């Protein structure tokens, strides 16, 4: 690097990276580090050797010359900027940031699981296939839906697989004139997006009044353009919904939908409130996806790939994607399209995120059926504890009890000029990852808090105290401070508007 360039970098550093704080390190890009004369690997110069790739020698590409400790420190320092469930409470509503038990990790690292290849002969991977078979059975038992495909590799991928299964069923049964999918206005954004990807148009069901679906609003949507609902392909509903409420009229709603010839897709994002308590098939679900990375404790959010198996009713199982694992006289085997001619086919190569399947099954088996039920109960209890403790300080739009997450809004703080964004930034100042903000969209300024079963009462009490303190600051005329948070972080409050309007996507010109 030239001297002028170095000076320019230093000046830039002064501007954007003021200082290290305590043991909180600033870190430049590898390219910005002073080039060491001591690269980690000492190779002889390739003088006189014929160049085999390309005919002309290419120019200097400027890879940094760094030693191994420099590189290790670079990545470890950056990793300290991260916030994860392993750092502390992570109440991100709807995302189910629960602890990832280390037992799962240990089991997933067994050589027989970690070092198998999807192209190995089935006879040599019987143990791995058995894991998938057992997982299918656990999921079928817990949902009441017997057809399980483990392939989808994320929640939204599972949604796509589920809705494609519904579309396939309609197509093979001469029902392709059905073009409408119903979804409540509190649904996850991926629901309408998935329906549109499958060629449907979305009709919203309003839920703003009570936070729940009502039979009345559902009927109005179902029969809006056809008195029999014969143009409706299905419905996508999350239960409990994104306001953290159980849909009380769901059985009657599902009955009407089925009578009209539509299928009920359940977004399984909130299944962690129901495991061992309610089987979704019993409230009318035809197909749903399961977020193994939420409900069944496999890592997510940068920690590992997601996994979104789908579970289907007997009726829909033949249309779902392949492969699926079956047991026969020889042991365990995969069934592909030739065995399942009505299947919509394979969604991706191989069988999905096998490592996540191992972890999820380890979680299920280590808890057992009674333990999984208690997990759901504890998650619901924790959310209700937070709701009851904060109900005096924050506006509760829909009266509790709630399920596994609770919904608050900034209505009480608004008059003091304090918004949900300020509250979220204040939580960062106090060392917490904020809750989900401005979602669901049914109301302004929403805050969705999901503690999961992971947190102890002490940890919930500390969070509640922090939230109460922020509410006090807002009403005690300290709103100026609340507009300034966070102060103790390496970066202060970011200009989110400018970042969105004029993003700088290049490191340098």
């Amino acid at each position: 690097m030239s001297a002028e360039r170095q000076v320019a970098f230093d000046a830039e550093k002064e501007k954007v990276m003021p200082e290290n704080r305590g043991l909180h390190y600033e870190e430049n890009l590898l390219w910005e580090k002073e080039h060491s004369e001591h690269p980690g690997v000492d190779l002889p110069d390739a003088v006189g050797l014929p160049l085999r790739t390309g005919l002309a020698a290419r120019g200097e590409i400027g890879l940094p010359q760094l030693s191994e400790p420099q590189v290790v420190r670079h990545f470890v320092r950056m990793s300290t900027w991260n916030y994860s469930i392993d750092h502390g409470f992570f109440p991100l509503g709807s995302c189910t940031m629960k602890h990832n038990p280390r037992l799962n990790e240990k089991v997933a690292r067994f050589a027989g699981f970690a070092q198998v290849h999807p192209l190995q002969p089935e006879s040599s991977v019987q143990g791995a296939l058995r894991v998938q078979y057992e997982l299918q059975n656990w999921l079928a038992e817990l949902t009441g839906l017997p057809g399980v495909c483990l392939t989808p590799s994320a929640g939204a991928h599972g949604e796509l697989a589920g809705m494609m299964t519904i579309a396939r069923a309609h197509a093979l049964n001469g029902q392709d004139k059905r073009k409408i999918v119903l979804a409540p206005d509190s649904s996850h954004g991926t629901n309408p997006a998935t329906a549109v990807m499958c060629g449907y148009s979305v009709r919203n069901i309003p839920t703003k009044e009570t936070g729940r679906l009502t039979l009345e609003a559902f009927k109005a949507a179902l029969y809006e353009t056809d008195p029999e609902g014969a143009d409706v392909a299905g419905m996508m509903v999350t239960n409990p919904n994104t306001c953290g409420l159980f849909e009380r009229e769901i059985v009657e709603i599902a009955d009407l939908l089925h009578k009209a010839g539509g299928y009920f897709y359940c977004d399984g994002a909130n299944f962690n409130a129901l495991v061992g308590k309610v089987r979704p098939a019993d409230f009318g679900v035809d197909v749903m996806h399961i977020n193994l990375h939420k409900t069944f404790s496999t890592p997510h959010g940068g920690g590992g790939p997601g996994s979104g198996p789908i579970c289907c009713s007997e009726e829909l199982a033949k249309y779902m994607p392949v492969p699926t694992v079956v047991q026969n006289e020889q042991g365990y085997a995969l069934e592909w399209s030739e065995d399942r001619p009505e299947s919509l086919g394979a969604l991706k190569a191989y069988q999905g995120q096998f490592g996540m399947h191992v972890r999820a099954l380890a979680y299920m088996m280590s808890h057992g059926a009674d333990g999984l039920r208690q997990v759901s109960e504890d998650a619901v209890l924790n959310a209700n504890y937070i709701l009851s403790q904060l109900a005096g300080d924050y506006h509760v739009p829909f009266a509790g009890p709630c399920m596994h997450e609770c919904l608050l809004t900034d209505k009480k703080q608004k008059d003091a000029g304090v918004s949900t964004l300020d509250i979220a930034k204040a939580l960062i100042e106090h060392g917490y990852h904020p809750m989900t903000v401005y979602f669901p969209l049914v109301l302004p300024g929403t805050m969705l808090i999901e503690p999961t079963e992971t947190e102890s009462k002490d940890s919930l009490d500390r969070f509640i105290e922090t939230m109460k303190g922020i509410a006090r600051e807002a009403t005690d005329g300290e709103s100026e401070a609340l507009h300034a948070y966070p102060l103790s972080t390496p970066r202060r409050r970011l200009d989110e508007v400018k970042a969105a309007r004029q993003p700088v996507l290049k490191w340098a010109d």
Partner: protein
Amino acid sequence: MADYKYTKDHECVFVDGQDVWVGISSYAREALGDLVYVELPEVGKSVSQGDDIAVIESVKTAAEVYAPVAGEVIAVNEAMPDDLDLIAKPVEQGGWIVKLKVADSGALDALMNSAAYEAYLKEVD
């Protein structure tokens, strides 16, 4: 006082003979917060009442703008994507997003006037 009409989804409409200028109400502007993006429709597009005609994205959320009445898109506010603060101006003075040629001007009677919209806001809040 300009003649504004409003929808339940908080579109604000300025009626100018057979044409209407469509923007969003100040209530909607406040609820959305700072805008970061506006997606405009193509000129010439025919829309039914309730069709999506534009998408507004703010730091908080993305929201659709719906056609207040059926008609044809005769102009879009090309300046808006580059100057999102225009949304704060009155609809007919730069705050408009889309201009529609109304198919049936009788349909405009179904929209709320300012007083009715004020009352509606009290009800929903």
